[in-house]
């Protein structure tokens, strides 16, 4: 009791002072500061397995490819033990000049798979920003690295992930007079490259389904372009519209249940939509001229397409049932191959005005910007986060290569392909 009273007596003055201070407003301080440089991200080799270093190399390469960071490592910088993955020595990494640190470790599981732990640290603040673990088959260790890089990219930029994705394109080889064109698929960094078609027929315009498990593409059959649907895992393919019809420029709807495409019949080319599993196509346009390159808005309510109904190739938007068709491109030159952004806020296109260039505009046609300055850049395809557009660039002397350009501005980055490539399509994010 005596002790309680004494304690109370001691506490009263302190409580009184605190109450006084609590009632006073805080000192208001404003500080403005920062720089427009790239964040330096340290990616030291992960401990635990021989794969650790390889995973870190892929992460560093992915982060460099985003154009948003300056990664350092895994070579030339220190390493750490597994226990330090979650609690690194921030001071040491600060001294190394890093603003952020990607750490982790690789652990084998009893079922033969791997667990890859990924940690992102703010070295400046000395705190962990994010962490996640990925369990993958041994052969899929690169995917764990891509997912870790996606975690870093998303947390530091606020943008959606896009690195754990795949790319299909038309791989071209052989002489110009006898060009071999095959559909190839690869990871977004060019690894795991393989061919999906044998090259017996010329193929163009492969497009992923929203789940990334199927493709639609245009292949030549009996010297006529025809739309095919290809199951990637099994390799099975089928004609979208049976018979000898001339069909081309297909693309899936956002829910994957329909496919919109061009059909040339009776001297006119119009846009049709059909159930992805087959059925009777429904005609959406009927204007004289060529209506082609249809692309759904991400909510599936509208379709953008190109048409020469007005005399030159221009971009038009209509409702998904074909109603409300109106032109949206009014700049100089011609406009072609429109693709609606996954975010819904922009439409990418090819502008033909002397040279061919990739640009973006709002769905209403405003705020058009040209993103590239090549001689012949065409065939845009959006990254799933809507921040990059991939396209193929044809050089004056021949040869076609794939590039990706950020819509925020900046140089286009060449995508690694083992041979010439065209008509790229970026897959959705892999699950």
């Amino acid at each position, binding site marked *: *009791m005596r002790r309680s009273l004494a304690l109370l007596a001691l506490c009263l003055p302190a409580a009184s002072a605190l109450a006084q201070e609590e009632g006073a407003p805080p*000192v208001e*301080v404003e*500080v403005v*500061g920062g*720089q427009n440089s790239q964040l330096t991200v340290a990616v030291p080799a992960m401990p635990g397995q021989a794969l650790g270093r390889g995973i870190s190399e892929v992460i560093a390469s992915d982060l460099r490819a985003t154009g948003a960071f300056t990664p350092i490592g895994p070579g030339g910088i220190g390493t750490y033990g597994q226990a330090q993955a979650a609690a690194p020595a921030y001071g040491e990494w600060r001294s190394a000049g890093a603003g952020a640190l990607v750490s982790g470790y690789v652990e084998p599981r009893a079922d033969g798979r791997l667990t890859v732990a990924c940690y992102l640290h703010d070295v400046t*603040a000395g705190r962990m920003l994010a962490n996640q673990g990925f369990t993958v088959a041994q052969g899929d260790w690169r995917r764990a690295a891509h997912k870790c890089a996606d975690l870093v990219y998303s947390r530091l930029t*606020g943008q959606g992930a896009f690195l754990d994705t795949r790319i299909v394109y038309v791989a071209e080889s052989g002489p110009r007079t006898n060009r071999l064109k095959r559909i190839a698929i690869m990871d977004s960094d060019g690894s795991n490259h393989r061919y999906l078609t044998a090259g017996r027929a010329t193929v163009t315009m492969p497009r992923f389904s929203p789940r990334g498990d199927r493709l639609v593409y245009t292949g030549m059959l009996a010297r006529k372009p025809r739309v095919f649907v290809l199951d990637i895992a099994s390799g099975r393919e089928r004609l979208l519209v049976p018979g000898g019809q001339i069909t081309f420029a297909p693309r899936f709807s956002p829910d994957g249940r329909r496919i919109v495409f061009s059909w040339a019949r009776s001297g006119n080319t119009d846009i049709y939509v059909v159930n992805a599993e087959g059925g009777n196509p429904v005609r959406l346009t009927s204007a004289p001229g060529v209506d082609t390159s249809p692309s759904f808005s991400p909510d599936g309510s509208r379709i953008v397409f190109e048409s020469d109904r007005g005399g030159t190739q221009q971009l038009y938007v209509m409702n998904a049932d074909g109603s409300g068709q109106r032109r949206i491109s009014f700049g100089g030159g011609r406009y072609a191959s429109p693709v609606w952004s996954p975010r819904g806020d922009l439409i990418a296109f090819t502008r033909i005005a002397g040279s061919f260039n990739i640009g973006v505009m709002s769905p209403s046609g405003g705020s058009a910007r040209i993103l590239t300055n090549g001689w012949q850049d065409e065939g845009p395809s959006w990254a799933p986060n809507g921040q990059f557009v991939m396209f193929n660039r044809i050089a004056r002397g021949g040869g076609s290569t794939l590039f990706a350009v950020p819509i925020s501005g900046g140089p286009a980055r060449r995508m690694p392909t083992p041979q010439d490539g065209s008509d790229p399509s970026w897959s959705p994010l892999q699950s």
Partner: protein
Amino acid sequence: MNFDRAEWTGTGAAIVFHVALIAALSMSLASVNRAPEPPSMEVELVDEVGLQSAAPQPYIPPPPSQAPEMGEAIEPAPAPRVEAPPPTPSIKPAPPRPQRSAPRKPAPRVSRLGDDFLEGITGSDAPSRPARPAAATFDARAKASVAALFQRLVQPCADQQVNPGPGANRIRVTLNLRLRPSGTLAGTPRIVRVSGVDDDNARFEERVKDLAIAVYRECAPFRGLPPELYRTAEGGWSNINLTYKLP
């Protein structure tokens, strides 16, 4: 809670003793000459600010440290010069009342607690209480000075942050920091408010919060803040709202 007889007796005795002591002190205080009340204060608003307590000083203070100009590195204040006049206080003492002239010099700052403490205070002419250092006043001028100094302390760390993208500079993040007298953080800062977020830059909100946190964490502990302004009745640098934004 059970008390035994001895505890009841002790508690009762303590209460009786305290009542007696308070009564004796009250009678003694009533019989001695009252210490003059502090003169009433006159408050004026000033535009210029200086890093110094504006409370009346019982002695001639050294000149205040001159704060460096904005953007300069923080340098040690020049050595005090005795001949330099003290800065004009923002709170000026009013003219003394005729019959209650304030002592020109306060009592020396020594403890008067002695062997005769329990005998009560005699009716001497000495002040009835031991002298205490004058309390610092956290007026507008002092507050602005502290804010300016703190801003200079964190500016180098703010300058190191990397802009995550276009539009992020419209976001303002305010953190409330509680500091210890040593300048270290007394607790986990909390986000007080975030403004300037719109559809175009919403994706950067979390990152700008990260950057605001990084600003104080990198620069802590905060050295050189005036200790007398750590905590006063009007506030102090123990409690700071730090607003950060990218340029």
